[in-house]
């Protein structure tokens, strides 16, 4: 994205139809990315509309119908408390996707602000911020997350912030590198020379150049956040039952591997497919923004 971004930015009002045709050509070259995006839309619709269409309640226990095989009434069967597995997968998906998206927003926001300030102002600001980034990179993510969860508990909001904090440093690194690069371009110097203030230069001129990279990071970040939340909830430290999440569904399922292994299959399959879609989408976006492609 580097060279094309630098040259296209100073252009005055490119012809709209020509640029959208160009964009469409780029999009068409990423069939896998399109499939991933469609899959994510379907998943999003399923977890939001699913509970409306599918009548079973995710948290209703039924002591006489535990660990049942799939039937017309329970499409994916029931779990160890007689709860409907499909309803829980849908409800859990809503939680896992929301936590993943929001955690990404938290991580990307902190990372962009920190990395942006460091890359724009350089000097002492840069040294201080990037040293802090080093520190957070030195603590293995999961240990850091354990420390925060132990200290602040596991309310869903806390889980979101915690997972976000788990990867702000990586985001900051990438954004920092981009800011340093864009900062050196001539049109930035021109903006400054014309009297643009620092905040204006950062927000109006540098930040837009970093957006493609940030979109790629965001897509990969959601995948990572969903994986982390799942791991955390699987360990009993994330989203707490009875609220379902794909991770905490697996926690109980492991006790029933010998009796009903399917219980462990469905939630994991949904995590894998969702994260895969976000990763494929992220890679497709990266290729799309890459001028060398």
């Amino acid at each position, binding site marked *: 994205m580097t060279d094309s971004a630098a040259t296209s930015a100073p252009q005055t009002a490119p012809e709209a139809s020509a640029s959208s045709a160009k964009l469409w050509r780029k999009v068409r070259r990423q069939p896998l990315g399109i499939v991933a995006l469609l899959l994510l839309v379907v998943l999003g619709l399923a977890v939001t509309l699913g509970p409306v269409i599918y009548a079973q309640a995710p948290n209703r226990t039924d002591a006489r119908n535990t660990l049942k095989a799939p039937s017309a009434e329970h499409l994916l069967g029931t779990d160890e408390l007689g709860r409907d597995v499909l309803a829980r997968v849908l409800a859990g998906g809503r939680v896992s996707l929301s936590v993943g998206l929001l955690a990404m927003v938290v991580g990307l926001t902190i990372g962009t602000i920190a990395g942006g300030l460091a890359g724009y102002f350089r000097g002492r600001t840069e040294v201080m911020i990037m*040293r*802090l980034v*080093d*520190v*957070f*990179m*030195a*603590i*293995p*993510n*999961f*240990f*850091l997350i*354990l*420390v*925060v*969860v*132990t*200290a*602040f*508990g596991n309310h869903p909001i806390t889980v979101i912030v915690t997972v976000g904090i788990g990867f702000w440093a990586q985001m900051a690194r990438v954004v920092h590198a981009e800011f340093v690069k864009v900062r050196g371009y001539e049109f930035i110097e021109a903006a400054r020379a014309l009297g643009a203030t620092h905040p204006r230069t950062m927000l109006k001129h540098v930040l837009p150049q970093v957006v493609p990279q940030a979109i790629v990071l965001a897509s990969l970040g959601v*995948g990572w956040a969903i*994986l982390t939340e*799942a*791991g955390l909830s*699987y*360990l*009993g*430290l994330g989203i707490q039952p009875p609220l379902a999440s794909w991770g905490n569904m*697996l926690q109980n*399922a*492991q006790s029933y*591997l*010998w009796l009903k*292994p399917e219980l*462990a*299959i469905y*939630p*994991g399959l949904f*995590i*894998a497919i969702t*994260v*895969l879609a976000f*990763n*494929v989408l992220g*890679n497709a976006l990266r290729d799309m923004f890459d001028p060398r492609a």
Partner: protein
Amino acid sequence: MTAYILRRIGLGIIVLWLVSVVTFFLINLAPGGPSAAVSFERTASEREALLKLYGLDDPVLVRYGKWLGGVVRGDLGVSYNQGLPVALLLKQRLPNTLTLGLAALLTATILGILLGTLAAVYRNGWVDHLVSTITTLGMSIPGFWLGIVAIILFAVELRWLPASGIVSSGRSADFLDRLKHLVMPAGVLAFTLMPNVVRVTRSALLEVNRADYVRTAKGKGLPPNRVLFKHAFKNALVPVLAVLGLVTTALFSGSVVIESVFGWPGLGRLAIEAANGRDYPVILGATLLAGLLVVAVNLLVDLLYAVVDPRIRHD
């Protein structure tokens, strides 16, 4: 070179110190911090005695000073729940995590370089696409779920491998038995770590392949395989070395979850137990030790890097 090494070590120590600051104050200043942990459902006098016992009656800065002073001498405090020194608990668990980690790291590195090389040699062919599919899956499939699926397949259905633990009871000297216990956790962990190695190897080889000296070697009429292994490979390994530092950090994160799936009594599982039981000294100690290992590995990687690529020492 000596100056470079000393500077890197100094930087490592600073980072570690900051890690201790961040973790200590996160835990101690949080609303659910240690002093809250000892105050559930107790009378005022009991609470006071407990606070005194754990040294929690001092102001937080004094506590940090005392704690850090202990850490420097190898004293990480006493576990709230087990009543044993944290250092002892860590010492018991560390070898298990190192065994698992080294096995996974070795597998991931060897397989990763192999697959990355294949992908680069057969660029854009079906081998490349297959490798890219494997790496994308490795990045997307949750390690703990893959572990559960492996247990269903190899322990429950096929009964080839034990489902959990580090050794069968009463057979602690049996090497083969230990190896059988290691296969699944190490394999699963390696699968999740491999993608980074594959990607870096592939792109580094392709990058080197465009270099002038490789073109010269080809121009002289050397067979392609000879150019690849004699000329390109050595230089392509430099970025791969760099990514191993990153992979080690991911290794510690991954081992936390994988150790729980397979009941592997390592550092990660200790940290989980501590987090569940709000055992603050243990979680602090485990995090600091993990940080120490990460900093040490990265230092080692940096130094090796400087040995391999002399340009780095002189920046």
